[in-house]
């Protein structure tokens, strides 16, 4: 039922002299533009954009939207991404002109409500993390990692310590080592045990006085809570290093335990995951960071302070690393996070964690006989199953299962990450799914794994396109439409 006409490329739909907008006539005395700017500054022709009417544009994009799976339309158990329901109230509240139409450089007297909200959010994140100092500035989780590592580097520099290494488990998100490299550190991978936990012996072997930061995800990317986290943290602290918690998996532990309480010195939140900011087809997110007291002087400027009944932006931090982006931060995402936290309250946040963990364990218990979980039969908010046995017995890969799920109206789990598990399928149902959906998903997996392997190799069968040729795309990159001729 794809509307093939409307979903042609914008450029193919273009017709000369069609207009999708009309600007008002100029109401000020007009000057000759050539008197305003040197002739050489002007383009010799108008920008080469398509010419379309508003109905053209609306029909084009509305039809394109129907070619996406989304949380509003489908179960989206994409492990590590926490694709939970995005409350509609948050959208309406964030769009209030009193939030959405504020210029970043307005006088503070004209934005007291905004600053109050951000100040309260700083305090709420400090409470949830157990880490007292907060910067709301980073634009995404990876940006939060980078910012915190820069904070750590500034701290070491200020204390005349030369620490050049960052340790991270081999199961860590790729952003961890990439962020470390951008902050000027060398990354060293710590092995994971077959059980999925950090290999303490390998950690001790690699810990030395050059190690600045250990980055750890807890619960880790296998969905396990590092039960030796106390020993891990102590070992790092004894050598003078700092512990960074990748907060990607906070959904599992909200109100149950706090990174600050288990010894983390720094962490980021992913409000677009944990606090339901919609993922927007790939962004925006936000990546606020929380740190221990002694790192506070190095946080980016500004943050929001409250004194003498006024909220204001504080730029007066001589040891700050500076800004890591322009303006205050991804405020639109932060407003949604605020709405989400206020909707849930302390009890509700705990129930988020409880339901997320219950749902994940329920799916695990239902599917483990066909998709075993090498790291055991209990998990936190997600688990990593393996299709290795199916691959050996029937030639069915994790990719085949992922693609076939699409035919049944389920988004695929994350596949082939983490790389420490062969044929991995990382399943994160989130707390906002019903048992009915989880049962249907499990039963679909039973059905798929009984199907002939040839059928699966060719899946998906019902989507608008079949599997794309990714090798061709990378070998001969075509990254834009080009005008003919």
């Amino acid at each position, binding site marked *: 039922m794809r509307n093939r006409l409307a979903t042609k490329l*914008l450029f193919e739909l273009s017709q000369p002299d069609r207009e999708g907008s*009309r600007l008002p006539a100029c109401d000020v005395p007009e000057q000759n*533009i050539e008197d305003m*700017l040197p002739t050489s500054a002007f*383009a010799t022709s*108008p920008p*080469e*954009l*398509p010419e*379309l009417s508003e109905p053209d*544009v609306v029909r084009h*994009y*509305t039809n394109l939207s129907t070619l*996406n*799976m*989304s*949380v509003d339309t489908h179960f989206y158990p994409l492990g590590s*991404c926490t694709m939970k329901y995005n409350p509609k109230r948050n959208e309406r*509240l964030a769009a209030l002109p009193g939030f*959405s*139409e504020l210029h*970043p*450089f307005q*006088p503070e007297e004209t934005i*007291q*409500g*905004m600053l109050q909200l951000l100040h309260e959010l700083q305090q709420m994140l400090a409470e*949830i993390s157990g880490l007292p100092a907060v910067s709301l500035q980073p*634009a995404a989780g990876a*940006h939060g990692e980078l910012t915190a590592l820069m904070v750590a580097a500034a701290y070491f520099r200020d204390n005349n310590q030369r620490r050049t290494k960052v340790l991270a488990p081999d199961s860590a*998100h790729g952003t961890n080592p*990439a962020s470390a*490299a951008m902050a*000027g550190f060398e*990354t060293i991978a710590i092995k994971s045990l077959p059980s999925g936990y950090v290999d303490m012996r390998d950690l001790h072997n690699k810990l030395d006085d050059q190690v600045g930061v250990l980055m750890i995800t807890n619960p880790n990317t296998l969905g*396990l809570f590092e039960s030796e986290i*106390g020993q891990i943290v102590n070992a790092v602290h004894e050598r003078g290093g700092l512990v960074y918690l990748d907060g990607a998996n906070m959904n599992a*532990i909200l109100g149950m335990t706090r990174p600050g*309480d288990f010894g983390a010195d720094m962490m980021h939140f992913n409000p677009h995951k944990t606090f339901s900011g*919609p*993922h*927007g087809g*790939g*962004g925006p997110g936000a990546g606020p960071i929380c740190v221990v007291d002694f790192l506070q002087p190095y946080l980016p400027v500004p943050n929001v302070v409250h004194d003498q009944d006024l909220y204001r932006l504080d730029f007066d931090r001589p040891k700050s690393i500076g800004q890591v982006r*322009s303006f205050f931060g991804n*405020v639109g*995402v932060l407003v949604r996070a605020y*709405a989400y936290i*206020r*909707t849930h309250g*302390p009890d509700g946040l705990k129930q988020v964690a409880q339901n997320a963990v*219950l749902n994940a364990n329920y799916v695990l218990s239902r599917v483990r006989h066909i998709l075993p979980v090498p790291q055991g039969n209990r998990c936190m908010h997600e688990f990593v199953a393996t299709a290795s046995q199916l691959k050996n017995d029937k030639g069915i890969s994790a990719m085949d299962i992922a*693609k076939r799920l699409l035919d049944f109206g389920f988004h695929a789990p*994350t596949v082939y990450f983490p790389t420490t598990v062969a044929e991995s399928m990382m399943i994160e149902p989130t*707390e906002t799914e019903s*048992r009915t959906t989880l049962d249907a998903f499990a039963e679909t997996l039973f059905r798929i794994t009984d199907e002939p392997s040839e059928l699966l190799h060719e899946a998906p069968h019902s989507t608008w396109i079949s599997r794309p040729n990714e090798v061709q795309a990378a070998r001969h*990159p*075509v*990254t*834009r439409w080009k005008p003919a001729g």
Partner: protein
Amino acid sequence: MTYFFNTPQQQKEMCDAIGIQDVDELFSQIPAEIRLAEDLQLPAAMGELELTQHMTNLAARNYAAGQKICFLGAGSYDHFIPAAVDAIASRGEFYTSYTPYQPEVSQGNLQATFEYQSLICQLTGMEVSNASLYDGGSAVAEAVLMCLSATRRYSKVVAVGSVHPEYRQTTATYLQNLETELVTVPTPEGTVAPEQVAAVVDDTTACVLIQHPNFFGCLEEVEAIAQIAHDQGALLVQSFDPISLGLLKRPADLGADVAVAEGQSLGTPMQFGGPYLGILACREKFVRRMPGRIVGQTEDRRGRCCWVLTLQTREQHIRREKATSNICTNQGLFALRASVYLALMGPKGLSDTATLSMQKAHYAADCLWNTSRLGSAFARPFFKEFVVRDGNGQVQQLLNAASRQGILAGVSLGKWFPELSDCFLVTVTEKRTKSEIDQLATCLGSVNTPSEILHA
């Protein structure tokens, strides 16, 4: 509770199926000594009605740009946003989806991103665009890092002082743990003198960073600066205003190798500074050094044209510490908004927006020069922003007084440029009317004694 489905009875049944007594048993993985003994100290839960009232009250304690007359710019602009932009971006299929890891069920997002990349290339004249970065400031920093690796020159970057101070600050932050020196060429006359750039660019320089129109709204001699950079084997990074390209020459035509921008003007609300849209486009030869997602065209097994994420071997999830950047998302929803905006505007709409902004800015400047206390800081051609010098040197008082009269008159510059502490930046978009501009002039012209202002 609000967004949970399973009733206590269902939870019990699920626990039975798992083989546990209760949900708490699942949390036994967490050592008892670090389990939180008490509830978090957070305000109690609110229903939708209460929350709406609470947050509406907070919003009411702010003055939205629509409630005051906004002449603020400096990188975030009050341009008009057509209703269709909001309508498209409000579709759940767009805003509640994620990175298109499964291209078969993400062709909508992938095609929209491919079109975004194409529109940015058309707009800038560049050969490739990525799928977007966080914002203008981090896009500039990423562009600089990209130039370090493209030239294999890691020791020096030259920035022109009229580049947005927060973009330069962000770049400095990104460079502070690397061995790269950031040399800033001052711009006391509002624009940079090419010979001053030539004096500091040498064969160890990775790139020259320039903004055009610059932070003060003035036009720079980009072609001359590009020549200086290229003569030394350095690259030129140009930060541009997307709206200005309705009238001005494209970055590629001026000799830029990398074009970066804050894309907020293209259909994204100001929302107190973010989320915005980082635009980054460059010459084809640098494509494998680009940071961020890129969408490419290919065919499916049935030979049908389709789109996928491509060139992923640059990226962190494959290359880890050797990746071109740590970024693992784009600003999909705002790239979409920019595309819808550009598609609605078309060549004529963008030209008209640029022309109206420029005409009105020049009218506003002429009105302000007619007041006794205000003057032009720089005698340079400008686009839609200009720097005003207050003869009384009382910028903050003047701006505060204007604000109380319902006018956000400008951005004071002393915070970033101590030598311009008697100056402020005024921005005029196509949304401002003659009557509003006249009010600005009347307002700023009437508060003319510091003592009056202090006691106002």
